[in-house]
C-alpha cells in the first residue's frame, strides 16, 4: 500500500469551546453602497443578492449563474477596470445555522490597480448529485482571468468544489488519491493523540523507533498536455535549486522548453485547517512557519486582519515597532533571495552567500534581542507587539543602518555589471504587464513588468503613509529588472527604517484593551482583575463578531492576504491564506517557454518562492 493514501485518522478535538448562545452565526449581509456596487447593481439588477460594505470592504453577493458575466463586466467595464483576480477561496458553512441556504460559497478578491479599489465577490455554489453525496459546483473564471487556474484547483483540492469549464481540474496540493477534501467541515483534523501516560505496555509504543509506514514510491503520471514525443525531465522535489520541495515536470524539445507542470504540495502542512481549530491568538505562532523567511510580515498580516475585525486601535509606538520589524524582515528576506539566486545562477557564487548571510545574521541578532527568537519570532501579536524593545536595540539598529547601504553597494559591485550575470538574466523570464495582471502576480513580479503598485504606499496600513519612500519599478519585465527592483527595495527599506527609528514615539507597546491583549506580567502580581483577564484570554481567548474580512499587506514577495470568516466564536470559522509565492509561481510555465533548462533555475530564483507558503 503506497503511503500517499491517507493514514488512519482518528477523530480528535484539541479543545471544546464554551460558546455563548447565538454562536455560531452566519455573517451579516453587507450594508450601504459605493459607486462601484451601485454600478454593478444597475447592470445586473435582480441577479445581485446583496451589495455594499462589510467590515470596510466592498462586497457583492451574486447569483452563481451570473458570476462569469459579472467577472467579465468587472474586467472590461471602463468605470470599474478590475484588472486582477487576487484570490479565490471558499467557505463550507455546514456548521452554521443555514436555514436552507447553500452550504458552499466561493469568495473572490478583485483588485483594480488603476483605480485603487478592492472588491470581494461571493457566490453560492449549486450542487450536482454525486456518488458520495452532492458535489458543489460553480463556473470557472479561468476564461476571464488566467490567474484563476491555480487558486481554483486549490479550492477543488481542499474543499471539493468543482469548477465547470476549468481546463485542468486536478488536485494540486494533496496526493492524487487522497480520500477526502480536508477543508470540508466533516473531514477530521487528523493527527495523533499525544500520549500523556508513559507505560511501555501502551500499544502507542509498539512501533516506537521502527519503520511503521511503508512509504513506497509510485510512478508519477505524465501531466496532461505533455507529449512523450518530447523529452520530459523531472526536476525535484529534491533538487538544490528549487528552493525547497518543489517538483517541476519539464517538457523539452531539444534544448528548448515546451511547457512546465509544477507539482506542489510536498510541504502541505494543513495551515488553514489547523487555524480553524485554534483560537485567534494561537494562530500567530503558525504564521511564522508559513513564509519562514519573512515571519514578521506574516505576523503583521494576520494581526492586522483580526484587529480590523475587532475594531482595535493600536498604540503609535507599537505601529512604529511593527514597521521597523517588517522592514528589517524585508531586508533579511531579500538578502537571502540574493544569496541563493546568485548561488543558483552561477553555481559557484558562494562568496555572495557568505556576505549576504553575514548581514542577515545581524538582522537576526536584532530580532533575537527583541524577542529571543531568530527565525520563528511571533513578536507581533494581536493588539501590538509581545514586549517593548530593549534599551540597546535602537543604537544597534542605527549601527546596522549605517553600514547597510554600503554593503548593498558592495553586492551590486559584485554582480550588477558583471557580463556573465547580465547575460544570464537579461531577457530571461520575460512577462508583459498585461499577462502579469491577468495572472494575478504581485510584488516585485508585478513591479518588474511596469505596474506601479505597492500596498504600503497605495493602501497604507500600520502608518506607512507617514514614511517617505519610493516604489521601484522596471519596464523590462525580465529577471534582470526584478533583480534591480529587489536591490532598490532594500535601499528603500533602509530609508524607511531610518525615518522610523528617528521618530520612535514613547508610549504603550501594545493595546491596553485587556479583553484582547494580555496584561503585562508585572500587573498579575498586584491586580486581581489583570489575573482574571489573563486567565480568560489564556483559556478561552476573545470572540470576534460574525463576519468576514480580507486584508492584504506588502510582503517581501508580494501581496500576503488573510481571509477570515468568523462565526462569533473564539476560533476562526474559516481561515484562508493568500500566499504571494503561490500565485507568482503560476507564471513559471509562461515565462520559461522557449527558454533553456538552465533558465528555469534563474526563473525560480527570480520569482522568489518559499515553499512553506506555496503549499501551506
Amino acid at each position, binding site marked *: 500500500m503506497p503511503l500517499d493514501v491517507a493514514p488512519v485518522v482518528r477523530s480528535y478535538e484539541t479543545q471544546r469551546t464554551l460558546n455563548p448562545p447565538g454562536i455560531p452565526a452566519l455573517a451579516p449581509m453587507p450594508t450601504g453602497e459605493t459607486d462601484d456596487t451601485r454600478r454593478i447593481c444597475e447592470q445586473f439588477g435582480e441577479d445581485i443578492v446583496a451589495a455594499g460594505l462589510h467590515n470596510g470592504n466592498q462586497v457583492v453577493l451574486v447569483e452563481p449563474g451570473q458570476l462569469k458575466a459579472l467577472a467579465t463586466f468587472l474586467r472590461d467595464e471602463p468605470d470599474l477596470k478590475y484588472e486582477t483576480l487576487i484570490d479565490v477561496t471558499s467557505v463550507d458553512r455546514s456548521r452554521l445555522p443555514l436555514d436552507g441556504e447553500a452550504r458552499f460559497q466561493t469568495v473572490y478578491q478583485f483588485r483594480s490597480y488603476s483605480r485603487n479599489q478592492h472588491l470581494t465577490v461571493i457566490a453560492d455554489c449549486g450542487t450536482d448529485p454525486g456518488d458520495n453525496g452532492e458535489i458543489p459546483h460553480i463556473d470557472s473564471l479561468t476564461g476571464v482571468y488566467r490567474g484563476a487556474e491555480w487558486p481554483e484547483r486549490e479550492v477543488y483540492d481542499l474543499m471539493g468544489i468543482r469548477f465547470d469549464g476549468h481546463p485542468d481540474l486536478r488536485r494540486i496540493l494533496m496526493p492524487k488519491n487522497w480520500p477526502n477534501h480536508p477543508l470540508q467541515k466533516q473531514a477530521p483534523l487528523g*493527527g*495523533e493523540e499525544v500520549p500523556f501516560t508513559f507505560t511501555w505496555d501502551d500499544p502507542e509504543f509498539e512501533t516506537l523507533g521502527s519503520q511503521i509506514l511503508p512509504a513506497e514510491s509510485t510512478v508519477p503520471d505524465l501531466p496532461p498536455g505533455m507529449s512523450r514525443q518530447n523529452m520530459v525531465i523531472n526536476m525535484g522535489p529534491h533538487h538544490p535549486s528549487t528552493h525547497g520541495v518543489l517538483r517541476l515536470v519539464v517538457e523539452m524539445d531539444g534544448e528548448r522548453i515546451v511547457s512546465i507542470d509544477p507539482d506542489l504540495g510536498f510541504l502541505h502542512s494543513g495551515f488553514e485547517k489547523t487555524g480553524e481549530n485554534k483560537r485567534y491568538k494561537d494562530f500567530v505562532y503558525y504564521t511564522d512557519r508559513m513564509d519562514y523567511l519573512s515571519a514578521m510580515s506574516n505576523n503583521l498580516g494576520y494581526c492586522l486582519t483580526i484587529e480590523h475585525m475587532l475594531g482595535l486601535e493600536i498604540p503609535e509606538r507599537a505601529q512604529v515597532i511593527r514597521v521597523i520589524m517588517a522592514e528589517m524582515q524585508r531586508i533579511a528576506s531579500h538578502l537571502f533571495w540574493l544569496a541563493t539566486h546568485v548561488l543558483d545562477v552561477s553555481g559557484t557564487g558562494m562568496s555572495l552567500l557568505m556576505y549576504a548571510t553575514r548581514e542577515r*545574521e545581524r538582522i537576526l541578532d536584532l530580532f533575537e534581542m527583541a524577542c529571543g527568537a531568530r527565525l520563528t519570532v511571533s513578536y507581533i501579536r494581536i493588539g501590538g507587539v509581545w514586549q517593548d524593545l530593549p534599551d540597546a536595540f535602537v543604537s544597534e539598529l542605527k549601527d546596522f543602518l549605517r553600514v547597510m547601504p554600503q554593503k548593498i553597494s558592495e553586492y551590486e559591485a559584485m554582480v550588477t555589471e558583471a557580463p556573465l550575470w547580465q547575460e544570464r538574466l537579461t531577457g530571461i523570464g520575460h512577462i508583459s504587464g498585461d499577462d502579469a495582471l491577468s495572472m494575478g502576480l504581485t510584488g516585485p513580479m508585478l513591479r518588474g513588468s511596469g505596474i506601479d503598485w505597492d500596498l504600503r504606499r497605495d493602501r497604507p496600513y500600520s502608518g506607512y503613509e507617514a514614511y517617505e519612500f519610493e516604489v521601484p519599478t522596471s519596464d523590462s519585465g525580465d529577471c534582470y529588472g526584478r533583480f534591480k527592483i529587489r536591490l532598490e527595495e532594500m535601499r528603500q527599506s533602509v530609508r524607511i527604517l531610518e525615518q522610523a527609528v528617528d521618530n520612535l514615539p514613547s508610549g504603550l507597546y501594545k493595546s491596553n484593551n485587556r479583553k484582547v491583549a494580555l496584561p503585562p506580567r508585572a500587573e498579575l502580581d498586584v491586580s486581581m482583575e489583570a489575573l482574571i483577564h489573563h486567565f480568560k484570554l489564556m483559556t478561552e481567548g476573545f470572540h470576534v463578531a460574525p463576519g468576514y474580512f480580507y486584508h492584504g499587506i506588502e510582503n517581501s514577495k508580494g501581496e500576503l492576504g488573510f481571509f477570515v470568516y468568523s462565526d462569533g466564536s473564539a476560533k476562526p470559522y474559516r481561515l484562508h491564506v493568500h500566499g504571494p509565492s503561490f500565485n507568482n509561481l503560476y507564471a513559471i510555465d509562461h515565462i520559461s517557454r522557449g527558454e533553456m533548462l538552465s533558465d528555469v533555475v534563474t526563473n525560480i530564483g527570480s520569482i522568489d518562492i518559499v515553499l512553506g507558503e506555496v503549499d501551506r
Partner: protein
Amino acid sequence: MGLEEKVPEGILTTSLDSVINWGRANSTWPLLFGLACCAMEMIATGTARHDIARYGSELFRASPRQADLMIVSGRVSNKMAPVIKRIYDQMLAPKWVIAMGICASAGGPFNNYAIIQGVDKIIPVDVYVPGCPPRPESLLYAMDLLRAKQRSESVGEWRKVEEPLAVDEIMPLGA
C-alpha cells in the same frame, strides 16, 4: 609491548575501527536537502558565522550517493514521505540521520492530516534535535553527539546492514 616493539620508531599502530571512524566522524558530508523552516537554520549553520566546516561537514552534497548524513530539516508531509524514504535508500552505507527540529522529530505543532508525526516512522533516526527551529548551535551540538556515536561504531556492523543483492534481484531474468 607487542607489535610496537618490533616496528621502527615513528610508526603508530591503531585498530582499524578507530582509524576508519576517525575519518568518518571528521568528514561527514550532509545531504543538500532542505524541507522547511529548519532548512534556513541549516543553511545558517553552513555559512560563515557558525561555520560547519570546523566539523568537516561543509560539503553539502546534492546527490544522495555522495552524502553520509541526512539532516531532515522540517516537517514531513504525506506526499513527501515516499520521496524522503527513497532518498534515504539511495544513500550508501554508512549513513546517518539527524531529525532537526520538533516537526521532524515528532510532528511538532502540525498535529494534523497533512504531516507525518515524526520522520522516524519512515527512516531510522540517530540524533533528535529539539527546537522550533533549533538554533545553529543546537545543530552543531547534534553533530557532536553524532560524532560520538560514529566513533563508537564498529566497521563490521555497517557491513552487516547492507547485504548484497543477488544478481537476479538487481536484474530479473527475462527483463
